[in-house]
């Protein structure tokens, strides 16, 4: 068995779930013949046929709305957004249709919306979105963000088996990153929704992060240990809605300092909610200001120099962490 990429892990999850459960199907733009814009679904059309791997017109409301209808019928659709930026074209289907359905009717909507999110690939303002905060704010939808190949597969399987709408945000920068290749267990496994994971143990500071920023935080944590003897605990949230409050609070209770890092813009982001939770629940445990590292409150820029200036990275994390460590 060879090591697989983050992207291959996603493809494996879809394929294995389609083999396991005939209610599972994939629909989206160019997912069939072309195998998806990033080739996530390469080979699935050949294996499962055009009825279960559906090339749709360029119509996100039709894609997501059809997924809602099929899910009401008891199917388990996976609706792909070619780039997650395009999810705005189907926003109403998620916010008003899918996420309120069970609550107001008692009818479950077991569906997954997934697609490539995040920047760092010179995608510019319309191919680099991190839309998690919009949906994090919406009751009735779960939001997950894998950062490793193992989690990419396990979280997607859990999302497909979930009886509620799940937004699964895969980070396109991680798709083929050689250092993320890993051997995955041959047996069936899931990564449960709602469980964060400790990526690195430490005593002096907690970094709360998710997605591609997990890897920037781990690099920064290594430097902090080498250069300043600061032991950083890195928590990969994995699931944003619901949040694993228990793991978050437990960590900050013993490190007493917290740095929140996300690629999305600062204001009203996931970090804002995390900061509020920590301020409310752990006020007496905090030895320094709850600190956030995030993108500035502007749209995602195109030019390489601007993109580099926009994205949080190891250096920006280090600057903030050093300041926090000094308290």
């Amino acid at each position, binding site marked *: 068995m060879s090591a697989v990429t983050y992207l291959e892990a996603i493809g494996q999850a879809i394929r294995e779930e389609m083999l396991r459960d005939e209610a599972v199907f994939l629909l989206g733009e160019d997912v069939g013949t072309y195998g998806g814009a990033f080739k996530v679904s390469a080979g699935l059309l050949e294996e499962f046929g055009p009825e279960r791997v*559906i090339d749709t017109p360029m119509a996100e*409301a*039709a894609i997501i709305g059809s997924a809602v209808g099929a899910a*009401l019928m008891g199917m388990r659709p996976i609706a792909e957004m070619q780039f997650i930026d395009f999810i705005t074209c189907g926003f109403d289907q998620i916010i008003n249709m899918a996420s309120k359905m*069970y609550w107001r009717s008692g009818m479950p909507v077991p569906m997954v919306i997934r697609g490539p999110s995040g920047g760092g690939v010179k995608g510019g303002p319309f191919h680099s979105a991190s839309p998690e905060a919009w949906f994090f704010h919406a009751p009735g939808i779960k939001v997950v963000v894998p950062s490793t190949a193992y989690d990419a597969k396990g979280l997607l399987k859990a999302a497909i088996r979930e*009886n509620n709408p799940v937004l699964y945000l895969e980070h396109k920068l991680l798709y083929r990153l050689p250092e993320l290749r890993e051997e995955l267990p041959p047996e069936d496994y899931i990564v449960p929704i709602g469980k964060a994971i400790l990526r690195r143990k430490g005593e002096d500071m907690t970094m709360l992060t998710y997605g591609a920023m997990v890897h920037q935080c781990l690099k920064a944590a290594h430097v902090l240990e080498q250069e300043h003897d600061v032991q950083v605990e890195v928590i990969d949230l994995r699931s944003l809605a619901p949040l694993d409050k228990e793991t978050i609070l437990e960590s900050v209770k013993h490190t007493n300092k917290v740095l929140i890092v996300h690629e999305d813009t600062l204001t009203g982001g996931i970090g804002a909610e995390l900061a509020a939770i920590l301020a409310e629940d752990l006020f007496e445990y905090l030895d320094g200001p709850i600190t956030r590292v995030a993108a500035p409150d502007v749209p995602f820029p195109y030019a390489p120099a601007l993109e580099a200036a926009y994205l949080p990275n190891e250096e920006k994390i280090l600057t903030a962490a050093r300041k926090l460590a000094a308290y």
Partner: protein
Amino acid sequence: MRLERADLLQIYYVMRLTRAMEDRTRMLFLQGKVVGGVYTAQGHEATTVGAAWTLADSDFIVPQHRDLGMHLTRGTSPRAVMCQWLARGNSPSLGFDGQLHIGDIHHGIVPSISMLGESLPVACGVALTMKMRKHSTIVMAPCGDGATSTGPFHEALNFASVQKLPIVFLIENNGYAYSTPTFQEFAIANLSERAVAYGILGESVDGNDLLKVIETVGRAVEQVRGGKGPALIECKTFRVRGHSEADKADYVPAALREEWLVKDPIPRFEDYLTREHILTPDIKAEIEEQVKAVVEDAVNFAEQSPAPDPSTVADYLFAPDGPVAIIGEPESHDPRYINALDRRTGKTFNSVTETGKPAFVATEEVGRR
């Protein structure tokens, strides 16, 4: 589609029940008993009841806010409807939502939302499932003239035509999108002309003529069931009242309203039934009596029903884990499936009466006359 005498009386009964339910809802609104806005469809009854009549029991509808006639034809309980208007704790939405935003997937009814047009892509997903799972059922997806201006309307028609989905799209063109007249909504004479662009069957029909509606929609249903892809039928009708009861609709020219009041679908159908000696004064009286009794029962039931328990305000956001049945397939009612029961209450879904379609049953004596 062949209509027996009993069918015609049943249709007339449901049309009358629809009108009476709405008249009574309006009264409850004026009495301050309805919690929110009231949206009615006086004048639509031939379209809503007639179109729904053409379906088989196992088919699906994706009704909108003015489709009480469709709901009642398909078996939605008048009690459930009144509980919705009065925001009762035992309403199908448990008081979380109002209006006709109710349904029961096991009875082929998909609940709608207030964003009109958005249900049409959902109808595509229901039909896509039927196609994938090789069911012989079809979907009827109505919308108003207003919704035809939305993106989802066009996305749904296009996707359905490409995928040859078994859907009858039904436009209830009632002349106004709230206060906006059709000439400010679209620049064509008949909305069924939209069908040409999607390469599907399109027909317009007098939506106030019950028999014409059944004939035209019935033909479309037959074609769609035959696997030829979707159809688009425009029923031309008129919204006699305002957009909601808060709207006086004084923007509607008096002459236009008068013109349509003359074409009221219920007296028109009544004239036909009388001419054909199907509806006698005695049967009519009996129908009126039964309509009154059903409406009274629904109102009394709703008024005696409890308000929702405020402590449930943060409940029922997510469905529990467990197996989910594919609707319309064997054992999909087996309680082991999460979607076989309303898991919020642990009971069966309650928007549809246990007996299914409301039936007018003439007494034998009257029936013989």
